């Protein structure tokens, strides 16, 4: 199992799911109506490191984080 957390303004509780790569996570979230407004604008981190490939391999206990558009300062 891996967990998926939604940061900042995305009002969604942590998900747990079976996934071997980020592609599996993408398939689940693309079918989630709540995520429709966010999925195209979120960056993705695995265990707090930003990643850039759907082929990123996930292992038991990994944490995937979705980061919506930012505005510090």
């Amino acid at each position: 199992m891996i967990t998926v957390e939604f940061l900042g303004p995305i009002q969604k509780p942590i998900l747990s799911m079976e996934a071997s790569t980020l592609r599996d996570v993408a398939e689940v979230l693309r079918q989630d109506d709540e995520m429709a407004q966010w999925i195209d604008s979120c960056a993705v981190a695995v265990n707090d490191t930003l990643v850039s490939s759907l082929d990123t391999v996930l292992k038991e206990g990994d944490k995937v984080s979705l980061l919506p558009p930012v505005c510090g300062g």
Partner: protein
Amino acid sequence: MLELHDGALNVPEILTRWYVQESASNYGAYIPFVGTVRDEDGIEGLSFDVYEPILTSWFDAWVAKAAPLGAKLKMAHSRGDVLLHESSYIAAVFSPKRRVALETIDAFVEDFKASAPIWKYDLRDGQRLYARDRSTAIAGAGLLGSAQ
């Protein structure tokens, strides 16, 4: 040095403390940037969420980038509510000579706005409203929605 504070920043205390910390470090330039919440569009203030693990790694990467230039970075940011005319953000660069400090503070603050995992909300009529139209997608965003 990265500091996170609950609520507004105490600007005089932070700027003075950083000054004292480096006063004997032989830096020729100390250039702080202070961000202040402005009274505009009827807001009562701003509020911030911060994701500390990635903010820390982002900041550490900047410290490593500045070090070969002889520059030192310091930054403070608020969590939670910050009211009008209060400060939510201070960044500062120390360096032996002014040119490096001026260029580094410019690049650092611009990258902060584009990349630091901090989310801003307007405080309006007792509500906390995500400032989506003023926010920037982090480089590489949209990965999960793309058909790779």
